[in-house]
């Protein structure tokens, strides 16, 4: 083959490939967002047997797909539908069935479902699996305690889990105090702050940390306001008429901002709430994922 023809063919092919890459990228971008792996819908026993000696790697793959799906929704600020949350939960059951010691799926469930989808009972059910698979790890008991205490508001059911967690090796020292205070002090905000601080310390992903820190700042702001209300009441023998009276009354210099963009307000009971309900305004997605029943 002549040299010039050879160079021409190479150049033309390289150019075509370069153009195709751009076109393909554009097409891919138009495609629907990440979907659930079809493997999630297979029966547990089948996926377990079918994974042969590669159960760990199959669990990793399923979890990566789930993280990408949730990550895309987070970036698009689109809330997952109820069905999608249920499929996510099913995926986590599959993953932890394949590899019960895999901690990331449990943590993912804990930091996602109760905060967004109110699937607290399901999260606890998943965490009970972690309690069995990781008998020397304090975190599963600690998370179940948090869920009962913070979300379900059932300190009686929560207390044994904190007591169990506080006795385990590696558990932070303050767990013992927390376990002791559990039955006498209803500090939901403190519990939330302690929980989030713990999770943030263990989180390596910058984007996830940012999300958790925002939630932590909002709880700290609420805690600051509620303690200011208590101080105001102690000083004036009455509750402030509204949140701004904390400034005019000389308790606070300014009202901290709500990181979610809402405004804090005072209830008649003396509790402080926010108009944002500690969440950004979210775009609802259509419930378009097929159910697996």
């Amino acid at each position, binding site marked *: 083959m002549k040299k010039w023809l050879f160079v021409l063919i190479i150049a033309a092919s390289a150019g075509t490939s370069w153009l195709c890459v751009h076109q393909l990228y554009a097409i891919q971008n138009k495609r629907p967002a990440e979907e659930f792996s079809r493997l999630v819908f297979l029966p547990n*026993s089948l996926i*377990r*047997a*079918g994974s*042969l*000696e*590669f*159960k*760990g*790697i199959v*669990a*990793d793959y399923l*979890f*990566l797909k789930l*993280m990408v799906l949730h990550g895309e929704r987070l970036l698009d600020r689109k809330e997952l539908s109820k069905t999608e949350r249920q499929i996510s939960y099913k995926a986590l059951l599959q993953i932890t069935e394949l*590899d019960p*010691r*895999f*901690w*990331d799926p449990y*943590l*993912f469930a804990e930091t996602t479902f109760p905060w967004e989808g109110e699937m607290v009972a399901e999260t606890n059910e998943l965490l009970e699996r972690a309690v069995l698979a990781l008998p020397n790890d304090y975190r599963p008991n600690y998370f179940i305690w948090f869920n009962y205490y913070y979300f379900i508001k059932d300190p009686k059911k929560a207390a044994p889990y904190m007591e169990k967690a506080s006795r385990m090796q590696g558990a932070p020292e303050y767990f013992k105090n927390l376990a002791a205070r559990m039955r006498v002090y209803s500090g939901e905000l403190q519990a939330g702050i302690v929980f989030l601080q713990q999770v943030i310390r*263990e*989180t*390596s*992903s910058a984007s*996830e940390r940012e999300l958790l820190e925002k939630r932590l700042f909002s709880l700290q702001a609420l805690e600051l306001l509620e303690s200011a209300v208590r101080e105001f009441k102690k000083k004036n023998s009455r509750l402030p008429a509204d949140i701004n009276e904390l400034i005019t009354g000389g308790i606070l210099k300014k009202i901290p901002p709500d990181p979610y963009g809402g405004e804090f307000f005072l209830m008649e009971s003396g509790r402080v709430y926010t108009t944002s309900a500690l969440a950004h305004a979210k775009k609802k997605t259509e419930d378009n994922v097929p159910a697996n029943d």
Partner: protein
Amino acid sequence: MNALKTIWAIGLISFQEGLRRRIIYGVVLASLLFMSFAVLISGLFMRDIVKIMLDLSLSAVSVSGLLVPFIVGITLLSGDMEQRTIYTILAQPVSRAHYILGKYLGFAMLTSLIMGILTGATIVTVWGSSHLYAEHFFTSLSFSAIFLSSLMSLLAVLVLNSAMILWCCVTTSSFLATLLTLATYLIGQTVEDIIRFISLHIAGAEVSGLVQKTVQVALYLFPNLAAFDFKQQAAYGLPIPLHEVILLGIYGAAYITVMLLLAIVIFNKRDLA
């Protein structure tokens, strides 16, 4: 003494023949690239970075080891028959039993070399990654667990190699021998799970007595390869009980002996003309 020398000589030739297959270098290279990829992808996960890295790397070790029974071993054995080089070998003072044992030794050496290199690469990968990621991600890391897990995977492939040799003696078709080896592998990896599923007695999923008996028979007939899988223990740095390792060593050695003896009996009766 002479018999051992003959077996060693055939083993060495088979090993060298295997090394001439370029596919081995391709798979080893692909596995090494896969391990590098494991370092990058593990960073996408939240905490279990070492677990992800070891899941991927130890799977690469297993897959590369399986290359010998599924591809290299079968093509070498059937190649000897098809290209009639077996006549040249058996024309020497070499018995058929020596030939089978020598071939097995060669494949065992080849498998050990491939899996040894990749286990070394796994250890280097994890050690190298400990400089990339924070120290606390590596608290569960146990090099002895990685080594033992790979050793058990090697033993599983050695068991499968012996089954592959038996199937090659049973049938003249290399395609059929590959299928039978694949079936042995699949049954060996799943039979325990199937028995566990049957023993659950799930309502609506009742299994007939005949199927139960068949599965029980399969458990004793086919090698229980799933029992050799310690990848998850290695991924979490959990201790691998010594008595289990010893038991698997005895089980593996016994199974290999039975397979090779059967192969020798069948090969001795086979008409090679």
